[in-house]
């Protein structure tokens, strides 16, 4: 389905390496999270903020991490003219799932660190129901990476295809973000797991839908 798994991982590893050439680069990622967090910490200062807002802010951070990976994904292939090379090397879907995997890995690792530090450092942010919180994080990361991958693909072609696709990115992302935020709230308010079931269903189906759609349209975006 996604080309052979082996080549997909190869695709993934390629992006992974070009982003993290040296072993020190991991510290760069850590710093990235710390940086983003400390911005929040600074502006909060010593006053107390409602958990609602805090759960919103958490997802702003996550979204930001997603964006910073986004530019790397397809635009740089486009600008360096390596698209042709990839077309000659692998099936379109191999490329897509490779990129998706990379975005997911990047986002997941960033979020793990971010989430942990967020809970540790921000006293007002107390997770009462970890089951909900973790599942939300997972599904949110999945959905966000899927969405940002296909968006990145579209953006990278925006100039050649001369369209306004990018604007579509926003309506695509919004439902996801709003759902994860409300799910996070539930986690903070310590609601029973069942209560978040609705959100989870939304998140999961969102991920499935996005991947399915990407699966169908990517070839058209990729080949000109």
């Amino acid at each position: 389905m996604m080309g052979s798994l082996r080549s997909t991982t190869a695709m993934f590893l390629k992006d992974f390496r070009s982003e993290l050439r040296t072993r020190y680069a991991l510290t760069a990622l850590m710093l990235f999270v710390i940086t983003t967090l400390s911005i929040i910490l600074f502006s909060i200062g010593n006053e107390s903020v409602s958990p609602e807002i805090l759960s919103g802010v958490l997802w702003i951070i996550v979204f930001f991490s997603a964006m910073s990976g986004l530019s790397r994904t397809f635009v740089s292939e486009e600008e360096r003219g390596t698209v042709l090379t990839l077309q000659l090397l692998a099936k379109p879907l191999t490329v897509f799932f490779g990129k998706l995997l990379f975005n997911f890995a990047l986002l997941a690792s960033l979020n793990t660190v971010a989430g942990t530090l967020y809970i540790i450092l921000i006293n007002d942010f107390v997770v009462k129901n970890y089951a909900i919180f973790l599942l939300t994080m997972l599904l949110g990361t999945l959905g966000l990476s899927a969405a940002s991958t296909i968006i990145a693909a579209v953006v990278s072609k925006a100039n050649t295809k001369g369209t306004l696709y990018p604007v579509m990115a926003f309506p695509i992302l919004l439902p996801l973000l709003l759902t994860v935020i409300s799910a996070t709230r539930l986690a903070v308010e310590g609601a029973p797991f069942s209560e978040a079931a609705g959100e989870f269903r939304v998140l999961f189906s969102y991920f499935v839908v996005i991947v399915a759609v990407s699966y169908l349209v990517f070839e058209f975006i990729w080949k000109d």
Partner: protein
Amino acid sequence: MPTAILHASNLAKVFNRRSIFSNINFVIPHGRSFAITGRNGSGKSTLVKILAGVISPNDGNFTITLDGTEVKRDDIYRHVGLVAPYLQLYEEFSAWENLDLFRKLRGVDVPDVSLDGLLEKVGLYKRKHDLVRTYSSGMKQRLKYAFALLHEPEVLLLDEPTSNLDAEGMSMVSEVIAVHRTKGIVIVATNVREEVQRCDASLDLDADPARQGVRS
């Protein structure tokens, strides 16, 4: 290696309403080399890209048949190797890392030794661990040959094969062509007369009625 045949029947390409070429017809049997010539902007590279399956013709069609079975369009990339000026390799990786990536992406099982052999052949063995970013234009061109030959394709597409190369590089190219001719099909798009003459057959895009050189 299977016997390959390439059929092209009245291929035509139009780029935003400018017809580049039309009703291009040719057949290249196994074991032949085929030259495509024409002035700058006549459509050589476009034709090459079509044959490589990365862009689709506006009209006509072409088929690569291996031992009588036709290659599906989506699988063409497995059976062609391309060297071209507009081909870009990953500059932030070393030659070795590039080839390693390529074999994994293609899912072909090329042992390390033959990667080294390939690098030796194109004369980059000693430099295999330097980043491609730091390569000279000729070294990059040489690496493209490794890229094209790695998966032992039946059809070898060489667009301006000798550009950026020194004497020794050029002899390498003619050797590659000579050897590969026996294994399958070699298609050369070039402006250099000698290279055209060295081929078994040739197609001049300028002769095409709907030809589109730069001037016109």
